[in-house]
Protein backbone atom coordinates (compact mmCIF):
# COMPACT_ATOMS: atom_id res chain seq x y z
CA UNK A 1 0.00 0.00 0.00
CA UNK A 2 1.45 3.35 -0.98
CA UNK A 3 0.11 5.09 2.10
CA UNK A 4 2.04 2.76 4.41
CA UNK A 5 5.02 4.89 3.47
CA UNK A 6 3.19 8.07 4.40
CA UNK A 7 1.00 7.06 7.32
CA UNK A 8 -0.43 10.54 7.80
CA UNK A 9 -0.96 11.55 4.24
CA UNK A 10 -3.88 10.13 2.29
CA UNK A 11 -3.95 10.49 -1.49
CA UNK A 12 -7.34 11.21 -2.95
CA UNK A 13 -9.12 11.57 -6.27
CA UNK A 14 -11.88 14.17 -6.28
CA UNK A 15 -14.78 14.32 -8.76
CA UNK A 16 -17.04 17.34 -8.64
CA UNK A 17 -18.39 19.19 -11.67
CA UNK A 18 -19.14 22.54 -10.07
CA UNK A 19 -15.91 24.54 -10.12
CA UNK A 20 -16.59 26.47 -6.90
CA UNK A 21 -17.29 23.32 -4.94
CA UNK A 22 -14.34 21.50 -6.52
CA UNK A 23 -11.97 24.25 -5.41
CA UNK A 24 -13.59 24.42 -1.97
CA UNK A 25 -13.37 20.67 -1.43
CA UNK A 26 -9.76 20.56 -2.60
CA UNK A 27 -8.92 23.35 -0.19
CA UNK A 28 -10.63 21.62 2.75
CA UNK A 29 -9.07 18.22 2.00
CA UNK A 30 -5.59 19.66 1.64
CA UNK A 31 -6.03 21.69 4.81
CA UNK A 32 -6.75 18.38 6.54
CA UNK A 33 -3.57 16.82 5.21
CA UNK A 34 -5.23 14.83 2.45
CA UNK A 35 -3.47 15.25 -0.86
CA UNK A 36 -5.78 15.68 -3.86
CA UNK A 37 -3.77 14.05 -6.63
CA UNK A 38 -6.38 14.60 -9.28
CA UNK A 39 -9.55 16.69 -9.34
CA UNK A 40 -11.87 15.88 -12.27
CA UNK A 41 -15.20 17.27 -13.44
CA UNK A 42 -16.79 14.48 -15.46
CA UNK A 43 -17.42 10.75 -15.46
CA UNK A 44 -14.96 9.57 -18.16
CA UNK A 45 -12.09 11.45 -16.49
CA UNK A 46 -13.15 9.96 -13.17
CA UNK A 47 -13.02 6.45 -14.61
CA UNK A 48 -9.47 7.12 -15.85
CA UNK A 49 -8.41 8.61 -12.51
CA UNK A 50 -9.82 5.65 -10.58
CA UNK A 51 -7.51 3.33 -12.51
CA UNK A 52 -4.47 4.94 -10.86
CA UNK A 53 -2.79 2.74 -8.31
CA UNK A 54 -1.32 5.54 -6.22
CA UNK A 55 -4.61 6.62 -4.62
CA UNK A 56 -6.13 5.71 -1.26
CA UNK A 57 -9.64 7.10 -1.56
CA UNK A 58 -12.06 8.66 -4.01
CA UNK A 59 -14.40 11.50 -3.08
CA UNK A 60 -17.12 11.72 -5.76
CA UNK A 61 -20.21 13.72 -6.45
CA UNK A 62 -23.23 11.58 -7.44
CA UNK A 63 -24.27 13.81 -10.32
CA UNK A 64 -21.62 14.35 -12.99
CA UNK A 65 -21.48 15.16 -16.69
CA UNK A 66 -22.29 13.90 -19.29
CA UNK A 67 -25.85 12.98 -18.23
CA UNK A 68 -25.94 14.61 -14.78
CA UNK A 69 -27.77 11.69 -13.22
CA UNK A 70 -25.92 9.08 -11.16
CA UNK A 71 -22.51 8.80 -12.83
CA UNK A 72 -20.68 9.14 -9.51
CA UNK A 73 -22.69 6.33 -7.99
CA UNK A 74 -22.05 4.05 -10.95
CA UNK A 75 -18.34 4.90 -10.89
CA UNK A 76 -18.20 4.00 -7.19
CA UNK A 77 -19.91 0.67 -7.82
CA UNK A 78 -17.69 -0.06 -10.81
CA UNK A 79 -14.40 0.72 -9.07
CA UNK A 80 -15.37 -1.44 -6.10
CA UNK A 81 -16.06 -4.32 -8.45
CA UNK A 82 -12.62 -3.96 -10.00
CA UNK A 83 -10.93 -3.19 -6.66
CA UNK A 84 -12.97 -4.74 -3.83
CA UNK A 85 -13.34 -2.53 -0.76
CA UNK A 86 -11.67 0.43 -2.42
CA UNK A 87 -12.64 3.39 -0.22
CA UNK A 88 -15.16 5.73 -1.81
CA UNK A 89 -16.95 8.64 -0.21
CA UNK A 90 -20.00 9.69 -2.23
CA UNK A 91 -21.28 13.23 -1.84
CA UNK A 92 -24.62 14.56 -2.98
CA UNK A 93 -26.91 17.57 -2.76
CA UNK A 94 -29.60 15.18 -1.52
CA UNK A 95 -29.50 11.65 -0.21
CA UNK A 96 -31.62 8.72 -1.24
CA UNK A 97 -31.93 5.48 0.78
CA UNK A 98 -32.21 3.58 -2.52
CA UNK A 99 -28.69 4.65 -3.48
CA UNK A 100 -27.40 3.89 0.01
CA UNK A 101 -28.65 0.36 -0.50
CA UNK A 102 -26.75 0.11 -3.81
CA UNK A 103 -23.53 1.35 -2.17
CA UNK A 104 -23.84 -0.95 0.82
CA UNK A 105 -24.81 -3.99 -1.26
CA UNK A 106 -21.32 -5.48 -1.24
CA UNK A 107 -21.21 -5.47 2.56
CA UNK A 108 -17.51 -4.59 2.53
CA UNK A 109 -17.34 -1.27 4.34
CA UNK A 110 -14.91 1.45 3.20
CA UNK A 111 -17.91 3.37 2.00
CA UNK A 112 -19.40 6.73 2.79
CA UNK A 113 -22.52 8.52 1.62
CA UNK A 114 -22.96 12.07 2.82
CA UNK A 115 -24.84 15.23 2.02
CA UNK A 116 -22.58 17.98 0.67
CA UNK A 117 -23.89 20.11 3.54
CA UNK A 118 -21.78 18.03 5.93
CA UNK A 119 -18.60 19.36 4.36
CA UNK A 120 -19.29 22.66 6.08
CA UNK A 121 -18.47 20.99 9.39
CA UNK A 122 -14.86 20.68 8.27
CA UNK A 123 -13.49 18.58 11.14
CA UNK A 124 -16.34 16.08 11.07
CA UNK A 125 -16.01 15.82 7.28
CA UNK A 126 -12.26 15.16 7.42
CA UNK A 127 -12.85 12.57 10.14
CA UNK A 128 -15.41 10.88 7.89
CA UNK A 129 -12.93 10.77 4.99
CA UNK A 130 -10.33 9.13 7.22
CA UNK A 131 -12.88 6.71 8.65
CA UNK A 132 -13.89 5.55 5.15
CA UNK A 133 -10.22 5.27 4.13
CA UNK A 134 -9.64 3.03 7.13
CA UNK A 135 -12.45 0.65 6.17
CA UNK A 136 -15.34 2.19 8.07
CA UNK A 137 -18.89 2.94 6.94
CA UNK A 138 -20.26 6.47 7.18
CA UNK A 139 -23.85 7.17 6.38
CA UNK A 140 -25.55 10.53 6.39
CA UNK A 141 -27.89 11.06 9.33
CA UNK A 142 -30.63 11.92 6.84
CA UNK A 143 -30.46 8.48 5.18
CA UNK A 144 -30.51 6.84 8.59
CA UNK A 145 -33.42 9.01 9.69
CA UNK A 146 -35.39 7.96 6.58
CA UNK A 147 -34.70 4.29 7.29
CA UNK A 148 -35.52 4.61 10.99
CA UNK A 149 -38.79 6.42 10.19
CA UNK A 150 -39.75 3.77 7.67
CA UNK A 151 -39.20 1.04 10.25
CA UNK A 152 -40.84 2.96 13.07
CA UNK A 153 -43.28 0.24 14.06
CA UNK A 154 -40.81 -2.58 14.75
CA UNK A 155 -38.64 -0.02 16.55
CA UNK A 156 -41.37 0.52 19.14
CA UNK A 157 -39.64 -2.23 21.08
CA UNK A 158 -36.68 0.06 21.70
CA UNK A 159 -36.50 2.75 24.36
CA UNK A 160 -35.99 6.37 23.37
CA UNK A 161 -32.35 6.14 24.45
CA UNK A 162 -31.74 2.91 22.55
CA UNK A 163 -33.26 4.38 19.41
CA UNK A 164 -30.87 7.32 19.69
CA UNK A 165 -27.92 4.93 20.00
CA UNK A 166 -29.19 2.89 17.04
CA UNK A 167 -29.39 6.01 14.87
CA UNK A 168 -25.84 7.06 15.75
CA UNK A 169 -24.61 3.52 15.23
CA UNK A 170 -26.19 3.40 11.77
CA UNK A 171 -24.38 6.59 10.83
CA UNK A 172 -21.17 4.67 11.34
CA UNK A 173 -20.06 5.93 14.75
CA UNK A 174 -18.02 3.88 17.19
CA UNK A 175 -19.06 3.35 20.83
CA UNK A 176 -16.54 5.97 21.88
CA UNK A 177 -17.95 8.49 19.43
CA UNK A 178 -21.51 7.71 20.48
CA UNK A 179 -20.58 8.12 24.15
CA UNK A 180 -18.99 11.49 23.44
CA UNK A 181 -22.00 12.62 21.45
CA UNK A 182 -24.55 11.54 24.06
CA UNK A 183 -22.39 12.64 26.99
CA UNK A 184 -22.45 9.24 28.72
CA UNK A 185 -19.78 6.65 29.47
CA UNK A 186 -18.66 4.18 26.84
CA UNK A 187 -19.81 1.39 29.16
CA UNK A 188 -23.35 2.75 29.16
CA UNK A 189 -23.31 2.83 25.35
CA UNK A 190 -22.10 -0.78 25.34
CA UNK A 191 -25.08 -1.74 27.46
CA UNK A 192 -27.47 -0.01 25.10
CA UNK A 193 -25.97 -1.64 22.02
CA UNK A 194 -26.22 -5.08 23.62
CA UNK A 195 -29.89 -4.44 24.38
CA UNK A 196 -30.51 -3.28 20.84
CA UNK A 197 -28.88 -6.31 19.29
CA UNK A 198 -30.83 -8.60 21.59
CA UNK A 199 -34.18 -6.90 20.96
CA UNK A 200 -33.75 -6.77 17.18
CA UNK A 201 -32.38 -10.30 17.12
CA UNK A 202 -29.19 -9.25 15.35
CA UNK A 203 -25.97 -11.27 15.39
CA UNK A 204 -23.43 -9.77 17.79
CA UNK A 205 -20.40 -8.40 16.00
CA UNK A 206 -17.23 -7.23 17.60
CA UNK A 207 -15.82 -4.82 15.05
CA UNK A 208 -17.49 -1.49 14.45
CA UNK A 209 -17.91 -1.82 10.72
CA UNK A 210 -19.63 -5.20 10.79
CA UNK A 211 -21.88 -3.85 13.47
CA UNK A 212 -22.88 -0.87 11.35
CA UNK A 213 -23.58 -3.08 8.35
CA UNK A 214 -25.73 -5.42 10.43
CA UNK A 215 -27.79 -2.51 11.72
CA UNK A 216 -28.17 -1.04 8.25
CA UNK A 217 -29.12 -4.36 6.74
CA UNK A 218 -31.80 -4.73 9.39
CA UNK A 219 -33.11 -1.19 8.84
CA UNK A 220 -33.14 -1.64 5.09
CA UNK A 221 -34.71 -5.10 5.16
Amino acid at each position, binding site marked *: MPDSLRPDSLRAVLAEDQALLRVGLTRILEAGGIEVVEAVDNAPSLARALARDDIDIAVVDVRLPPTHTTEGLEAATAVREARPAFPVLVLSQWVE*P*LYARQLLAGGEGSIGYLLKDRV*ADVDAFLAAVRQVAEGGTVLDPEVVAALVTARSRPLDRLTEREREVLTLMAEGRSNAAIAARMVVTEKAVGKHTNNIFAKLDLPQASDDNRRVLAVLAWLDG
Partner: protein
Amino acid sequence: MTDFTAMQILAPVRLGRPLDVTAGGLLDRLRLTLVSAGYAASFVPSLALAILSVLCVALGPALGLGVLLAQAVVPATAGLTALHRRVSGRLLDEEITPGYASPTQGLRWMRDPARWRNVGFLWFSASGGFAMSLLPVALLTLPLTWLILALTASGWIWLLLLVLSGPALVAWWFVTPPLVRARALTERAMLGDSRVARLEQRVERVEESRAETLDHNAAEVRRIERDLHDGAQARIASVGMNVGLAEKLVHTDPEAAAALLREARETTMDALDDLRSVVRGIHPPVLADKGLTGAVQALSLALPVPTSVAVEVPRLPAPVESAAYFAIAECLANTVKHAAATRAWVTGRYDGDRLRITVGDDGRGGADATGSGLTGVARRLDAFDGDVRVLSPAGGPTLVELEVPCRTA
Protein backbone atom coordinates in the same frame (compact mmCIF):
# COMPACT_ATOMS: atom_id res chain seq x y z
CA MET B 1 -87.94 -18.74 -39.15
CA THR B 2 -91.61 -17.92 -38.91
CA ASP B 3 -91.28 -16.93 -35.30
CA PHE B 4 -91.64 -13.18 -35.74
CA THR B 5 -90.13 -11.86 -32.55
CA ALA B 6 -89.12 -8.22 -32.47
CA MET B 7 -85.54 -9.36 -32.72
CA GLN B 8 -86.12 -10.96 -36.08
CA ILE B 9 -88.33 -8.25 -37.49
CA LEU B 10 -85.56 -5.79 -36.73
CA ALA B 11 -82.71 -8.06 -37.86
CA PRO B 12 -79.98 -6.28 -39.85
CA VAL B 13 -80.83 -5.51 -43.48
CA ARG B 14 -78.89 -7.66 -45.95
CA LEU B 15 -78.94 -6.59 -49.56
CA GLY B 16 -77.70 -10.01 -50.70
CA ARG B 17 -78.34 -11.21 -54.28
CA PRO B 18 -81.72 -9.84 -55.42
CA LEU B 19 -81.95 -12.32 -58.33
CA ASP B 20 -82.19 -15.33 -56.01
CA VAL B 21 -85.88 -15.87 -55.49
CA THR B 22 -86.26 -17.99 -52.37
CA ALA B 23 -88.79 -18.42 -49.58
CA GLY B 24 -86.29 -16.89 -47.18
CA GLY B 25 -85.90 -13.89 -49.46
CA LEU B 26 -89.64 -13.47 -49.66
CA LEU B 27 -90.01 -13.66 -45.88
CA ASP B 28 -87.21 -11.13 -45.44
CA ARG B 29 -88.88 -8.68 -47.83
CA LEU B 30 -92.19 -9.13 -46.08
CA ARG B 31 -90.70 -8.23 -42.69
CA LEU B 32 -88.88 -5.24 -44.22
CA THR B 33 -92.19 -4.07 -45.67
CA LEU B 34 -93.61 -4.27 -42.15
CA VAL B 35 -90.69 -2.22 -40.85
CA SER B 36 -91.20 0.25 -43.67
CA ALA B 37 -94.86 0.55 -42.71
CA GLY B 38 -93.73 1.35 -39.19
CA TYR B 39 -91.37 4.04 -40.49
CA ALA B 40 -94.19 5.48 -42.58
CA ALA B 41 -96.58 5.45 -39.62
CA SER B 42 -94.13 7.65 -37.74
CA PHE B 43 -95.35 10.33 -40.15
CA VAL B 44 -98.19 11.21 -37.77
CA PRO B 45 -96.28 11.95 -34.55
CA SER B 46 -93.40 13.44 -36.56
CA LEU B 47 -95.62 15.94 -38.33
CA ALA B 48 -97.39 16.85 -35.09
CA LEU B 49 -94.11 17.42 -33.24
CA ALA B 50 -92.59 19.26 -36.21
CA ILE B 51 -95.48 21.73 -36.23
CA LEU B 52 -95.34 22.10 -32.45
CA SER B 53 -91.59 22.75 -32.67
CA VAL B 54 -92.20 25.58 -35.11
CA LEU B 55 -94.84 26.93 -32.73
CA CYS B 56 -92.34 26.80 -29.86
CA VAL B 57 -89.87 28.90 -31.78
CA ALA B 58 -92.53 31.28 -33.03
CA LEU B 59 -94.14 31.78 -29.61
CA GLY B 60 -91.02 31.52 -27.51
CA PRO B 61 -89.58 35.00 -27.52
CA ALA B 62 -92.92 36.80 -27.64
CA LEU B 63 -94.96 35.20 -24.91
CA GLY B 64 -92.83 32.71 -23.02
CA LEU B 65 -95.58 30.26 -23.96
CA GLY B 66 -93.19 28.62 -26.40
CA VAL B 67 -90.84 27.93 -23.54
CA LEU B 68 -93.59 26.15 -21.66
CA LEU B 69 -94.59 24.22 -24.76
CA ALA B 70 -90.97 23.24 -25.33
CA GLN B 71 -90.92 21.57 -21.92
CA ALA B 72 -93.25 18.98 -23.43
CA VAL B 73 -92.16 19.02 -27.07
CA VAL B 74 -88.42 18.59 -26.51
CA PRO B 75 -88.72 15.43 -24.37
CA ALA B 76 -91.40 14.02 -26.69
CA THR B 77 -89.11 14.56 -29.66
CA ALA B 78 -86.27 12.95 -27.74
CA GLY B 79 -88.53 9.94 -27.06
CA LEU B 80 -89.59 9.55 -30.69
CA THR B 81 -86.05 9.95 -32.01
CA ALA B 82 -84.77 7.49 -29.39
CA LEU B 83 -87.20 4.90 -30.79
CA HIS B 84 -85.96 5.62 -34.32
CA ARG B 85 -82.35 5.35 -33.18
CA ARG B 86 -83.05 1.94 -31.73
CA VAL B 87 -84.90 0.66 -34.78
CA SER B 88 -82.40 2.01 -37.31
CA GLY B 89 -79.51 0.92 -35.12
CA ARG B 90 -80.83 -2.66 -35.10
CA LEU B 91 -81.30 -2.61 -38.87
CA LEU B 92 -77.71 -1.42 -39.36
CA ASP B 93 -76.39 -3.66 -36.60
CA GLU B 94 -74.71 -0.84 -34.73
CA GLU B 95 -75.49 1.51 -31.92
CA ILE B 96 -76.64 5.03 -32.75
CA THR B 97 -75.92 7.38 -29.85
CA PRO B 98 -77.65 10.75 -29.68
CA GLY B 99 -74.65 12.87 -28.62
CA TYR B 100 -76.70 15.44 -26.74
CA ALA B 101 -74.53 18.14 -25.19
CA SER B 102 -75.82 17.63 -21.66
CA PRO B 103 -79.03 16.79 -19.81
CA THR B 104 -81.82 19.26 -20.57
CA GLN B 105 -81.22 21.99 -18.04
CA GLY B 106 -83.48 24.96 -18.49
CA LEU B 107 -83.05 26.17 -22.04
CA ARG B 108 -79.62 24.72 -22.65
CA TRP B 109 -80.99 22.49 -25.38
CA MET B 110 -81.45 25.65 -27.44
CA ARG B 111 -77.70 25.68 -27.97
CA ASP B 112 -77.41 21.95 -28.59
CA PRO B 113 -77.04 21.16 -32.30
CA ALA B 114 -78.10 17.55 -31.68
CA ARG B 115 -81.56 18.79 -30.55
CA TRP B 116 -81.93 20.93 -33.65
CA ARG B 117 -81.00 17.95 -35.79
CA ASN B 118 -83.87 16.14 -34.04
CA VAL B 119 -86.23 18.84 -35.31
CA GLY B 120 -84.79 18.48 -38.79
CA PHE B 121 -85.43 14.76 -38.58
CA LEU B 122 -89.09 15.38 -37.70
CA TRP B 123 -89.58 17.23 -40.98
CA PHE B 124 -87.75 14.52 -42.91
CA SER B 125 -89.92 11.83 -41.32
CA ALA B 126 -93.04 13.81 -42.20
CA SER B 127 -92.06 14.37 -45.85
CA GLY B 128 -89.38 12.62 -47.92
CA GLY B 129 -88.90 9.88 -45.35
CA PHE B 130 -92.63 9.19 -45.35
CA ALA B 131 -92.67 8.87 -49.15
CA MET B 132 -89.67 6.57 -49.29
CA SER B 133 -91.06 4.28 -46.59
CA LEU B 134 -94.57 4.24 -48.00
CA LEU B 135 -93.35 3.06 -51.42
CA PRO B 136 -92.56 -0.60 -50.53
CA VAL B 137 -95.86 -0.86 -48.69
CA ALA B 138 -97.79 0.56 -51.65
CA LEU B 139 -95.97 -1.63 -54.20
CA LEU B 140 -96.94 -4.72 -52.25
CA THR B 141 -100.44 -3.84 -51.15
CA LEU B 142 -101.82 -2.53 -54.47
CA PRO B 143 -101.54 -5.85 -56.38
CA LEU B 144 -102.77 -7.65 -53.30
CA THR B 145 -105.80 -5.38 -53.19
CA TRP B 146 -106.60 -6.13 -56.87
CA LEU B 147 -106.11 -9.83 -56.20
CA ILE B 148 -108.53 -9.83 -53.28
CA LEU B 149 -111.04 -7.79 -55.27
CA ALA B 150 -110.65 -10.10 -58.30
CA LEU B 151 -111.37 -13.10 -56.13
CA THR B 152 -114.22 -11.60 -54.17
CA ALA B 153 -115.91 -9.05 -56.48
CA SER B 154 -115.44 -11.13 -59.63
CA GLY B 155 -115.06 -8.51 -62.32
CA TRP B 156 -112.68 -8.72 -65.28
CA ILE B 157 -111.49 -5.18 -64.53
CA TRP B 158 -109.79 -6.34 -61.28
CA LEU B 159 -108.13 -9.16 -63.11
CA LEU B 160 -106.82 -6.72 -65.72
CA LEU B 161 -105.54 -4.37 -63.03
CA LEU B 162 -103.92 -7.31 -61.29
CA VAL B 163 -102.08 -8.34 -64.46
CA LEU B 164 -101.06 -4.75 -65.17
CA SER B 165 -99.68 -4.34 -61.61
CA GLY B 166 -97.38 -7.31 -62.06
CA PRO B 167 -94.35 -5.03 -62.56
CA ALA B 168 -95.15 -3.38 -59.20
CA LEU B 169 -94.48 -6.67 -57.43
CA VAL B 170 -91.21 -7.03 -59.31
CA ALA B 171 -90.28 -3.50 -58.29
CA TRP B 172 -91.29 -4.30 -54.70
CA TRP B 173 -88.92 -7.30 -54.72
CA PHE B 174 -86.01 -5.17 -55.84
CA VAL B 175 -86.47 -1.85 -54.04
CA THR B 176 -87.62 -2.90 -50.58
CA PRO B 177 -84.26 -3.85 -48.98
CA PRO B 178 -82.30 -0.85 -50.40
CA LEU B 179 -85.05 1.57 -49.45
CA VAL B 180 -85.25 0.36 -45.86
CA ARG B 181 -81.51 0.46 -45.60
CA ALA B 182 -81.40 3.93 -47.11
CA ARG B 183 -83.93 5.13 -44.55
CA ALA B 184 -81.91 3.63 -41.70
CA LEU B 185 -78.70 5.23 -43.03
CA THR B 186 -80.38 8.61 -43.37
CA GLU B 187 -81.63 8.35 -39.79
CA ARG B 188 -78.15 7.47 -38.61
CA ALA B 189 -76.75 10.51 -40.38
CA MET B 190 -79.40 12.82 -38.91
CA LEU B 191 -79.78 11.38 -35.42
CA GLY B 192 -76.35 9.92 -34.79
CA ASP B 193 -73.51 11.41 -32.87
CA SER B 194 -71.76 13.36 -35.60
CA ARG B 195 -67.98 13.57 -35.84
CA VAL B 196 -68.20 17.30 -35.35
CA ALA B 197 -70.32 16.86 -32.23
CA ARG B 198 -67.87 14.33 -30.86
CA LEU B 199 -64.96 16.65 -31.52
CA GLU B 200 -66.85 19.54 -29.97
CA GLN B 201 -67.42 17.52 -26.82
CA ARG B 202 -63.80 16.59 -26.69
CA VAL B 203 -62.70 20.18 -27.12
CA GLU B 204 -65.01 21.13 -24.27
CA ARG B 205 -63.40 18.52 -22.02
CA VAL B 206 -59.90 19.54 -23.04
CA GLU B 207 -60.75 23.16 -22.29
CA GLU B 208 -62.01 22.21 -18.86
CA SER B 209 -58.98 20.13 -17.99
CA ARG B 210 -56.66 22.80 -19.36
CA ALA B 211 -58.28 25.42 -17.15
CA GLU B 212 -57.91 23.10 -14.16
CA THR B 213 -54.30 22.37 -15.01
CA LEU B 214 -53.54 26.07 -15.32
CA ASP B 215 -55.19 26.77 -11.96
CA HIS B 216 -53.26 23.93 -10.41
CA ASN B 217 -49.98 25.15 -11.91
CA ALA B 218 -50.58 28.71 -10.77
CA ALA B 219 -51.24 27.47 -7.24
CA GLU B 220 -48.07 25.35 -7.37
CA VAL B 221 -45.98 28.28 -8.54
CA ARG B 222 -47.37 30.42 -5.71
CA ARG B 223 -46.59 27.67 -3.21
CA ILE B 224 -43.00 27.34 -4.50
CA GLU B 225 -42.53 31.09 -4.40
CA ARG B 226 -43.77 31.20 -0.81
CA ASP B 227 -41.61 28.24 0.23
CA LEU B 228 -38.50 29.84 -1.24
CA HIS B 229 -39.32 33.23 0.20
CA ASP B 230 -39.97 31.98 3.73
CA GLY B 231 -37.23 29.37 3.67
CA ALA B 232 -33.99 29.45 1.75
CA GLN B 233 -34.20 33.11 0.76
CA ALA B 234 -34.65 34.34 4.32
CA ARG B 235 -31.92 32.07 5.63
CA ILE B 236 -29.38 33.09 3.00
CA ALA B 237 -30.14 36.74 3.76
CA SER B 238 -29.40 36.08 7.42
CA VAL B 239 -26.13 34.34 6.48
CA GLY B 240 -25.13 37.47 4.59
CA MET B 241 -25.85 39.62 7.62
CA ASN B 242 -23.96 37.37 10.01
CA VAL B 243 -20.92 37.17 7.75
CA GLY B 244 -21.00 40.94 7.30
CA LEU B 245 -21.10 41.47 11.02
CA ALA B 246 -18.33 38.92 11.57
CA GLU B 247 -16.18 40.76 9.04
CA LYS B 248 -16.66 43.93 11.09
CA LEU B 249 -15.87 42.23 14.40
CA VAL B 250 -13.01 40.01 13.27
CA HIS B 251 -10.29 42.32 14.62
CA THR B 252 -12.01 43.82 17.65
CA ASP B 253 -13.84 40.73 18.95
CA PRO B 254 -12.55 37.57 17.21
CA GLU B 255 -14.54 35.30 19.50
CA ALA B 256 -17.85 36.93 18.68
CA ALA B 257 -16.89 36.86 15.00
CA ALA B 258 -16.20 33.11 15.18
CA ALA B 259 -19.57 32.55 16.86
CA LEU B 260 -21.31 34.51 14.10
CA LEU B 261 -19.52 32.52 11.43
CA ARG B 262 -20.53 29.26 13.08
CA GLU B 263 -24.12 30.42 13.17
CA ALA B 264 -23.88 31.42 9.50
CA ARG B 265 -22.58 27.96 8.61
CA GLU B 266 -25.45 26.27 10.42
CA THR B 267 -27.92 28.53 8.69
CA THR B 268 -26.60 27.56 5.25
CA MET B 269 -27.34 23.95 6.18
CA ASP B 270 -30.91 24.85 7.01
CA ALA B 271 -31.17 26.78 3.74
CA LEU B 272 -29.96 23.74 1.79
CA ASP B 273 -32.42 21.59 3.70
CA ASP B 274 -35.22 23.93 2.66
CA LEU B 275 -34.10 23.91 -0.96
CA ARG B 276 -34.03 20.13 -1.00
CA SER B 277 -37.58 19.86 0.24
CA VAL B 278 -38.73 22.42 -2.33
CA VAL B 279 -36.98 20.48 -5.12
CA ARG B 280 -38.53 17.19 -3.96
CA GLY B 281 -41.94 18.82 -4.22
CA ILE B 282 -41.28 20.01 -7.79
CA HIS B 283 -39.47 17.11 -9.39
CA PRO B 284 -37.81 14.52 -7.17
CA PRO B 285 -34.15 14.09 -8.24
CA VAL B 286 -34.41 10.30 -8.13
CA LEU B 287 -37.23 10.53 -10.69
CA ALA B 288 -35.04 12.58 -13.00
CA ASP B 289 -32.17 10.10 -12.57
CA LYS B 290 -33.87 6.73 -12.57
CA GLY B 291 -37.31 7.26 -14.07
CA LEU B 292 -40.55 5.92 -12.67
CA THR B 293 -39.19 2.46 -11.91
CA GLY B 294 -36.41 3.68 -9.61
CA ALA B 295 -38.40 6.54 -8.14
CA VAL B 296 -41.30 4.32 -7.03
CA GLN B 297 -38.80 1.89 -5.53
CA ALA B 298 -37.19 4.75 -3.63
CA LEU B 299 -40.62 5.93 -2.52
CA SER B 300 -41.51 2.50 -1.18
CA LEU B 301 -38.36 2.38 0.97
CA ALA B 302 -39.52 5.38 2.94
CA LEU B 303 -42.96 3.97 3.80
CA PRO B 304 -43.87 2.48 7.16
CA VAL B 305 -46.07 -0.11 5.39
CA PRO B 306 -44.04 -2.85 3.65
CA THR B 307 -44.57 -2.15 -0.03
CA SER B 308 -43.58 -4.37 -2.94
CA VAL B 309 -42.84 -2.71 -6.24
CA ALA B 310 -43.05 -4.35 -9.66
CA VAL B 311 -42.88 -1.41 -12.02
CA GLU B 312 -41.19 -2.27 -15.30
CA VAL B 313 -41.57 0.71 -17.59
CA PRO B 314 -39.17 2.46 -19.97
CA ARG B 315 -38.33 6.15 -19.63
CA LEU B 316 -41.43 8.17 -20.43
CA PRO B 317 -41.81 11.90 -21.14
CA ALA B 318 -40.87 13.82 -17.98
CA PRO B 319 -44.34 15.38 -17.45
CA VAL B 320 -45.98 11.95 -17.59
CA GLU B 321 -43.41 10.46 -15.23
CA SER B 322 -43.94 13.31 -12.84
CA ALA B 323 -47.74 13.09 -12.92
CA ALA B 324 -47.68 9.33 -12.48
CA TYR B 325 -45.13 9.58 -9.67
CA PHE B 326 -47.11 12.10 -7.67
CA ALA B 327 -50.31 10.16 -8.30
CA ILE B 328 -48.70 6.98 -6.94
CA ALA B 329 -47.25 8.91 -4.01
CA GLU B 330 -50.70 10.28 -3.19
CA CYS B 331 -52.26 6.80 -3.34
CA LEU B 332 -49.58 5.35 -1.08
CA ALA B 333 -49.94 8.28 1.31
CA ASN B 334 -53.66 7.46 1.49
CA THR B 335 -52.81 3.84 2.23
CA VAL B 336 -50.51 4.85 5.08
CA LYS B 337 -52.96 7.39 6.50
CA HIS B 338 -56.30 5.63 6.22
CA ALA B 339 -56.10 1.99 5.21
CA ALA B 340 -54.54 0.38 8.33
CA ALA B 341 -52.91 -2.00 5.86
CA THR B 342 -50.24 -4.58 6.65
CA ARG B 343 -48.89 -4.51 3.15
CA ALA B 344 -49.16 -2.54 -0.08
CA TRP B 345 -48.04 -3.06 -3.66
CA VAL B 346 -47.47 -1.10 -6.83
CA THR B 347 -47.42 -2.73 -10.25
CA GLY B 348 -46.84 -0.93 -13.51
CA ARG B 349 -46.43 -1.73 -17.16
CA TYR B 350 -46.32 0.07 -20.46
CA ASP B 351 -47.74 -1.56 -23.57
CA GLY B 352 -46.45 0.80 -26.25
CA ASP B 353 -49.14 3.37 -25.87
CA ARG B 354 -50.60 3.30 -22.42
CA LEU B 355 -49.01 3.40 -19.00
CA ARG B 356 -50.99 1.25 -16.56
CA ILE B 357 -50.33 1.44 -12.83
CA THR B 358 -52.11 -0.37 -10.02
CA VAL B 359 -51.67 0.66 -6.41
CA GLY B 360 -53.20 -1.75 -3.92
CA ASP B 361 -53.29 -2.52 -0.22
CA ASP B 362 -54.85 -5.11 2.06
CA GLY B 363 -56.37 -2.50 4.35
CA ARG B 364 -59.92 -1.82 5.37
CA GLY B 365 -61.14 -0.40 2.04
CA GLY B 366 -63.92 2.16 1.72
CA ALA B 367 -61.65 4.72 0.06
CA ASP B 368 -63.61 7.78 -1.02
CA ALA B 369 -63.01 8.36 -4.74
CA THR B 370 -64.46 11.86 -4.35
CA GLY B 371 -62.12 12.79 -1.48
CA SER B 372 -59.58 15.54 -2.05
CA GLY B 373 -56.65 13.14 -2.35
CA LEU B 374 -58.07 10.95 -5.10
CA THR B 375 -59.68 13.84 -7.00
CA GLY B 376 -56.25 15.48 -6.93
CA VAL B 377 -54.85 12.32 -8.52
CA ALA B 378 -57.60 12.38 -11.14
CA ARG B 379 -56.90 16.03 -11.90
CA ARG B 380 -53.19 15.42 -12.36
CA LEU B 381 -53.86 12.63 -14.83
CA ASP B 382 -56.71 14.43 -16.56
CA ALA B 383 -54.23 16.81 -18.12
CA PHE B 384 -52.83 13.80 -19.99
CA ASP B 385 -56.22 12.27 -20.83
CA GLY B 386 -55.54 9.73 -18.13
CA ASP B 387 -58.05 7.80 -16.03
CA VAL B 388 -58.35 6.78 -12.41
CA ARG B 389 -60.51 3.89 -11.21
CA VAL B 390 -60.96 3.18 -7.53
CA LEU B 391 -62.12 -0.23 -6.33
CA SER B 392 -62.42 -0.12 -2.60
CA PRO B 393 -65.25 -2.14 -1.08
CA ALA B 394 -65.76 -1.73 2.68
CA GLY B 395 -63.52 -4.31 4.33
CA GLY B 396 -60.95 -3.99 1.56
CA PRO B 397 -58.82 -4.60 -0.31
CA THR B 398 -58.32 -1.27 -2.09
CA LEU B 399 -57.16 -1.08 -5.68
CA VAL B 400 -56.50 2.16 -7.51
CA GLU B 401 -55.90 1.80 -11.23
CA LEU B 402 -54.20 4.63 -13.08
CA GLU B 403 -53.99 4.79 -16.83
CA VAL B 404 -52.21 7.38 -18.96
CA PRO B 405 -51.86 7.30 -22.74
CA CYS B 406 -48.31 8.31 -23.74
CA ARG B 407 -45.33 7.62 -25.97
CA THR B 408 -41.87 6.71 -24.76
CA ALA B 409 -39.40 9.49 -24.13
